[in-house]
């Protein structure tokens, strides 16, 4: 067992990397626009399916194009959703906001089903051709290392963007108080749309990156959504740092849990979540939740 620890660690971090991409988008949109986007999982799934169109080719240029185009497309779809639908219900009760994005999630996943069918789509070429890396006598897929690096880079870029750039400051200002920001002359509508674009971009990237080692299939949307919920509950809603730590915790628990108690790994995850809820209700990094 002890010799396998590095591998479990890496697997957990790889898993956390993907979870971070998904949950960071979800939490970003919530913190700025106060919308819990239940369609986020469906956007993630759509990203995986769109990437599959490109990734089935053996040409590295087309594959890279896929990794660029899939997130961009999802980002634009996300903006279209915000401008076309979500915009109208910012001032309504949260029930309707949840309901709208829930309906949207059903629509997107059914469109995916109609377009791509229900058979799982697998593109293993990339993972196979990249081979493995030897780590203490065990082989770890090189592709997974690339995903980890990519997520870390995205996390750092996102952090620097939000903390150090002017646009990042404006976004954080909007998340603290969008009315006041609007009174100060900030075009809040534009910021909301941009946040949805960023969130969609991250979901699409997550979808594209998860595809090569796994498959694109119906149901992956709900799984992703629920797991990013768990991440968010543990890390705290509306906090990117919380999403980062939450992803690591969930990723590592899953990776070790699958080995240690395969039957109850999922239950264990929920027990951890329940414990965080009881001990620190707002999540590890969450701010005191208040109605804005």
């Amino acid at each position, binding site marked *: 067992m002890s010799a396998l620890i590095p591998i479990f660690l890496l697997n957990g971090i790889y898993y956390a990397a993907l979870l971070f991409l998904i949950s960071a988008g979800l939490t970003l949109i919530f913190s700025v626009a106060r919308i819990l986007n239940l369609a986020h999982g469906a956007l993630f799934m759509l990203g995986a399916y769109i990437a599959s169109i490109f990734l089935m080719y053996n040409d590295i240029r087309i594959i890279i194009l896929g990794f660029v185009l899939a997130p961009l497309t999802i980002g634009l779809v996300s903006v279209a959703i915000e401008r076309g639908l979500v915009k109208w219900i910012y001032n309504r009760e*949260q029930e309707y906001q*949840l309901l709208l994005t829930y309906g949207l999630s059903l629509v997107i996943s059914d469109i995916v089903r109609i377009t791509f069918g229900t058979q799982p789509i697998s593109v293993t070429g990339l993972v196979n051709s990249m081979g493995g890396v030897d780590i203490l006598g065990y082989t770890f897929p090189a592709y997974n290392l690339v995903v980890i690096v990519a997520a870390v880079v995205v996390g750092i870029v996102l952090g620097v963007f939000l903390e150090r750039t002017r646009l990042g400051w404006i976004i954080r200002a909007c998340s603290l108080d969008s009315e006041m920001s609007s009174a100060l002359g900030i075009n809040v509508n534009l910021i909301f749309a941009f946040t949805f674009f960023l969130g969609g971009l991250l979901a699409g990237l997550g979808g594209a990156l998860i595809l090569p080692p796994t498959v694109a299939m119906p149901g992956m949307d709900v799984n992703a959504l629920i797991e990013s919920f768990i991440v968010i509950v543990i890390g705290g809603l509306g906090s990117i740092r919380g999403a980062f730590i939450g992803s690591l915790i969930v990723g590592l628990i899953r990776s070790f849990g699958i080995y240690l108690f395969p039957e109850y790994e*999922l*239950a264990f995850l*929920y027990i951890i979540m329940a414990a965080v809820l009881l001990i620190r*209700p707002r999540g590890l990094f969450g701010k005191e939740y208040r109605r804005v």
Partner: protein
Amino acid sequence: MSNGGGLNKIVESLQKNQYYFILAVIAVLFLIPSVSSRYYIFLVGLALIYSIWALGFNILFGYTGLLSFGHAAYLGIGAYTVALLMNKLGIMSYEVLLLASIASSLVISMAVGFLCVRYTEVYFALLTLAFGEFFFAITYKLYDLTGGSDGMSVLYPTFLGQQMNLTSLYYVIVIIFIVSTYVGWRIVNSPFGKTLQAIREDPVKAEFAGIPVKRYQWYSFIVSGIYSGLAGALYAPLFAHVVPDLFHWTTSGEVLFLTLIGGYRFFLGPVFGAVIYAFLRSYITAYTIYWPLILGLSVMIIALGFPDGVIGSIIRFISKRISRR
């Protein structure tokens, strides 16, 4: 405004003769098996099960103001309690099975509710959804116990020592529907129900008025869970089969959807919604494979345009015309 006046008269005469009206509905419900085909007995039975479930859901949603996105869990627990006791322990007595379903949904909703009511609004929805999916995943995983994705078959149980069939099951559903509607009506009009509504209107004020808000929300969650469990216990033998999809969030979405069709601002709204939904769904799924798409679009349209639900909007429209006259 001759039209509004006509409607006004209808509403008035309904109010004046509401007891006759209720008796007429009950009589129709009891007469259905002797005049209609098995298909319609099944469909009306299903509509009544949906009604019980949605009435319970609406005690939490409409009356307490908490939107649960995981209410499939308690329906599923009721149904799986029946299936498990029948398949693993060979218990065929429906009296026992119904009581066991109430007990199991009570225990589970107590535990989950205890965690979830610590939050409101979006967090509450998120948590109920996450816990709902937990039961979905666990029924998939525990293959030896639950049959995994194949589910389990359920036979007609016995009631008062008699072997049941579709018709007798239907009568049990009707009776439980009537009783639970009556009990629900008493609940929402009791001091307890009024307290819940006060919490819905303004939790902070309610807290200052000395109401232990969290505890009342928890009670509401439990009542709602028991209704759902009971609906599940009726659902299992009607469908003769239980599958993990019962726990899925699309099932949770269904109860929300049908409550919203009917309108959650008045007591019987969910019942209207349930009847419309059961029939609509059965016809639409017979003609098209795009049911989730249609469901999703309808949910979006309701969210954007009909905040009081379809029936609620119609009633509001009518009462506006009446008052204008």
